[in-house]
């Protein structure tokens, strides 16, 4: 790469060379900074366009050629979305309900599981752990088929509980992984102190571990919610009654069937904007958990 007795350029003292190097470096720095800004603009522009379109009046939203921005702000798109087929409140209720149920199921299953895997001498523990990660290997897209059939028999189609079960199955590996790591990281002294006070294992779980694993609970809940909120294929398969549609499903339908003859772009963007809001809000508020969740999920 370099001969040992050659000094690097910027080691030469003084003079034009050093000045040039410094100028080049600062020019590069500005160039890189400009690229960063450009990148940010490219990333945000589509979202901005969508939000602006959702705030146009009906006429402006359907204008040809399309307007860059609304000249008059209006909530027409949102109003039509509110009344679209079964109505926006229904879709929001279904999406939120399924997402919250998913959180509850995930936590109820993986908190005890993490506890068991981290703290109990179970024979074949590693094997069980790998088993719980099963849906990493089997893509849920392939399982939708048999699960639909199973749920049809169990009358769980068209139900939020059924959808939540599917979403929980999707989230299991990640949740179990995060929970187990989190339990393992709790110092044993806390546990031992509680045991010496005469607590049984359940009390130890509730009094010692639960407060200690709150970040993991937040992370698991966050990802469970977001996965469920955004999921489409499962909802598409499980729900055929429009009163049980989730928001992504309703938007998929709004893509083709609308009331104005031709796609109602303003209404569609309003729907997109609304469906983005929770994800975006959670990201901004809980960025720390988002990032650490993605990173730990990748390590697996």
């Amino acid at each position, binding site marked *: 790469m370099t001969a040992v007795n050659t000094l690097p350029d910027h080691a030469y003292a003084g003079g034009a060379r050093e000045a040039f190097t410094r100028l080049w470096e600062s020019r590069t720095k500005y160039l890189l900074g400009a690229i960063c800004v450009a990148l940010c603009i490219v990333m945000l522009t589509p979202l901005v366009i*969508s939000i602006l379109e959702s705030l146009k009046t009906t006429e402006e939203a359907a204008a040809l050629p399309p307007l860059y921005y609304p000249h008059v702000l209006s909530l027409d798109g949102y109003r039509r979305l509110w009344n679209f087929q079964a109505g926006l409140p229904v879709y929001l209720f279904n999406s939120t309900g399924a997402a919250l149920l998913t959180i509850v199921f995930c936590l109820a299953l993986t908190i005890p599981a993490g506890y068991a895997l981290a703290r*109990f001498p179970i024979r074949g523990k590693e094997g069980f752990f790998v088993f719980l990660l099963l849906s990493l290997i089997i893509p849920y897209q392939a399982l939708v088929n048999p699960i639909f059939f199973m749920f049809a028999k169990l009358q769980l189609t068209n139900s939020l509980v059924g959808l939540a079960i599917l979403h929980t199955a999707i989230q299991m590996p990640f949740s179990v992984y995060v929970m187990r790591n989190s339990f393992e990281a709790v110092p044993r002294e806390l546990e031992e102190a509680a045991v010496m006070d005469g607590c049984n294992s359940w009390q130890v779980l509730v009094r010692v571990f639960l407060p200690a694993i709150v970040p993991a609970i937040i992370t698991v809940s966050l990802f469970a919610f977001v996965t469920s909120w955004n999921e489409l294929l499962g909802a598409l398969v499980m729900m055929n009654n429009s009163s049980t549609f989730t928001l992504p499903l309703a938007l998929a339908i709004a893509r083709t069937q609308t009331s104005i003859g031709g796609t109602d772009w303003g209404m569609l963007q309003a729907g997109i904007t609304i469906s983005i809001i929770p994800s975006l809000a959670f990201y901004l508020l809980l960025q720390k958990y988002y990032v650490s969740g993605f990173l730990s999920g990748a390590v697996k």
Partner: protein
Amino acid sequence: MHSTTGRYVGLLYLAPALVFVAAFTAFPVLQMLWMSLHNWSLIEPPKWVGFADYVKAYRDSQFWTSLRFTLTYTLYITPILMIGGFLIALLVAQNTNLRRFTRAVVFVPVVIGLGASSLLWYYLFSYDFGMVNRIGLDLGIIQKPVVWFGESVDRSLWAVIASIVWKVIGFGMLLFVAAIQAIPGEINEAAVVDGASYWQRVRRIILPLTVRTILLVTLFSVIGSLLAFDQFYLMTAGQPFNKTATSVFFVYLNSFPYLKLGYGAALSTILAIIVLTCTLAQLMLSRRSFG
């Protein structure tokens, strides 16, 4: 702390999760395999047909069209995500305020839903209402508006690729940044003192030390692309002539609107095997690179 009773209590805590996965992941796999050997619908009793459905898949031209299309999509988008994600990560790896802000912004599309993103880009690529054509015309890049969906498979493919790259590149960037930042500073400083240029440092230091992450991102990208559904269902609806229907889309079409659950199960099995093979291949490759 716990004696032999601990073992059983532990199992008790583990049981709910085990039962859940057994019931809703393991059992469906077995059911899928079983269903794939039958003609199955909701109304009639299942009829044993053995491997007939698998043979049918082999003979089904749409099966091969979908598979080819899915592989093409995967082969095009994966390098773009890898190289793009890596370059962006190099750009934003330092911890200045601007870089950190850029990181946060580039990650924003990752958190919005795939459905929302696909519909958004469906709108942007619309022939007469979309901003892509409008901006292209205004900037003089194109002379007349382009029909992105429904006519040419290539144009549809690239439109979808553009939208997905926009959406998920932040994910690769995040992982690469973490890997780059994990490289000890002394190695970099030593290289600078030795007179290494930036790109030499990238090639000789950063790349080798982040190989593991690179393989990981590739794995995620490949699997995700093989299983792509939402974006094609929402943006191209498989058109023209089902030529842009990916494998999962194809499975969906055969299982649900037509309710040929047995055939759908066979297709699902084939898909699962393909994905499994790719996963294993990639895991083996990554293990080999570490000796």
